[in-house]
């Protein structure tokens, strides 16, 4: 009895398939393009193959993420807030605060001792405090987003970045470079500014132990350290932080079937319309 979760984020599309025991049997991460439906189909297809299954064998498919309505072959759409909290409850039962740092938004989710969502807060209005902030400035600095974490650890101190706005910070960074600051010092400064913004947002929920960081931002060790500095204690990071949304979606599908809820309509993987 396999269950699939598909998470269409602003930057990445993720699919996780779990078995009847909720154990992950396959997962795939692909980039989200302009054509959500096309990508959803491709990534799903690849995951099914990886799991050695056929589409018809899937007992339940839950879609989540900001592109969740663009999955024509799902059985249910569920918000990423619910999906994240479902998988975190399975992975880290002690967690009370989830900080999810995505490519174009960041969220804070507060859980009670049973892992239920009590409150959440979100920023998708301003690029500062989202993955886009680092992405834009990595380009300005001519470095890869994926190497920023390690790079920043080389810095003994950080350069204070005073601009909140990504557009202005981009300019500030080039000025700091001409002033003689090193790239590691600047990147460490970016992480400090980023962490400050995200943690300040989450403070509105009341920060409680344990804290887990998910999303692409959690793959950046420098950012994780900066967040730990701000909250004042170590935070948890899932083994594959990009997959918590999709994993939660798959687990929720499994929960539905366990409660006797089955797919309402027949679905076909081919039933996909492409743009133009």
């Amino acid at each position, binding site marked *: 009895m396999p269950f699939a979760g598909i998470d269409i984020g602003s930057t990445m599309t993720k699919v996780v398939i779990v078995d009847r025991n909720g154990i992950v049997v396959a997962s795939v991460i692909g980039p989200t393009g*302009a054509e959500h439906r096309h990508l959803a189909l491709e990534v799903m297809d690849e995951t099914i193959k990886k799991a050695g299954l056929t589409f018809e064998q899937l007992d339940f498919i839950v879609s989540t993420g900001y592109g969740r309505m663009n999955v024509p072959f799902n059985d249910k759409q569920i918000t990423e807030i619910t999906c994240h909290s479902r998988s975190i409850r399975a992975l880290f039962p002690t967690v009370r605060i989830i900080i999810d740092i995505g490519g*174009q938004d960041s969220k804070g989710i507060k859980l009670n001792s049973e892992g239920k969502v009590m409150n959440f807060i979100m920023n*998708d*209005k*301003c*690029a500062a405090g989202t993955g*886009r*902030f680092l992405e*834009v400035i990595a380009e300005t600095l001519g470095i890869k987003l994926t190497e920023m974490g390690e790079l920043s650890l080389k810095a003994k101190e950080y350069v204070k970045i005073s*601009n*909140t*706005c*990504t*557009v*202005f910070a981009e300019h500030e960074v080039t000025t700091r470079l001409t002033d003689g600051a090193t790239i590691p010092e600047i990147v460490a400064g970016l992480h400090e500014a980023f962490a400050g913004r995200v943690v300040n947002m989450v403070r509105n929920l009341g920060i409680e132990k344990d804290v887990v960081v998910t999303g692409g931002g959690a793959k950046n060790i420098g950012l994780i350290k900066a967040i730990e500095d701000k909250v004042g204690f170590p935070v948890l990071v899932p083994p594959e932080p990009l997959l918590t949304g999709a994993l939660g979606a798959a687990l929720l599908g499994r929960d539905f079937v366990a409660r006797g809820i089955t797919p309402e309509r027949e679905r076909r993987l081919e039933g996909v319309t492409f*743009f133009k």
Partner: protein
Amino acid sequence: MSDSQEYYAGVDIGSAFIKAVLVSHKQIVASEILASGGNYKKTARRVLDEVLSKARVSLEKLSGIVVTGIGAESAPFPARQFSDISCQAMGCHCLFPSARTVIDIGGQFTKVAKLTPKGRIANFLMSEKCATGSGRFLQVIARILRIDMEDIGLLSLKSQTPVEFSTNCAVFAESETVSRIAEGARMEDILAGVHHAMAAKVAMLVKRLKMEPDVVLTGGGSEDIGLVLAVSETLGVKVLVPEQPRLTAAMGAACWAEEGKH
């Protein structure tokens, strides 16, 4: 020119351009704009010389000079210094005595000032936190659309259905622009959408100061007719625009020079 007439000069030493205005009885007699270049002192001197020779007035006959702008310290002639904000306000006041609110949309910042009936600053706000309210937003989008800043205004007027951006963030709007182009959105609709987003941001600043008519829009942003109309529509008032918005600070400086004498 009669010998009894008194002349006053205002020189605005900006990082990109140096501007000079010569006034008499707070009316513009002559003006000049030159690119600042690497030597503020030299260019400032040249701009002043040009404006004087245009008006056939000798330096000795000048009754007063006020300098303003980021390079005011480098003025190569004896002059009093005034802040660019108070010069901007005074310039708008001299051009439009009925002005009570001045909006200056620049490349980096948007400033809003409330004026007293005498052209003094009553209150002042500046947006420096977010690129959306500044000319920078338009620059970012113009770069993607590969269009010159000067062409934006007229082109945007052709828009029938402005794009509604889902965010007010210049960075997100940049990627949204790319997807909208892929979906076949027209360039004029994207530009009109940017104008509306900017106008909304500017209006927030203006409302915090409690807008009072008449409203003057100056700075580089006022050279964009699409933006001017969007601001006017969003604020629900008519907006006055100087003929040469780049000169308002220099004009104000000259008017301060003249006021100082009385």
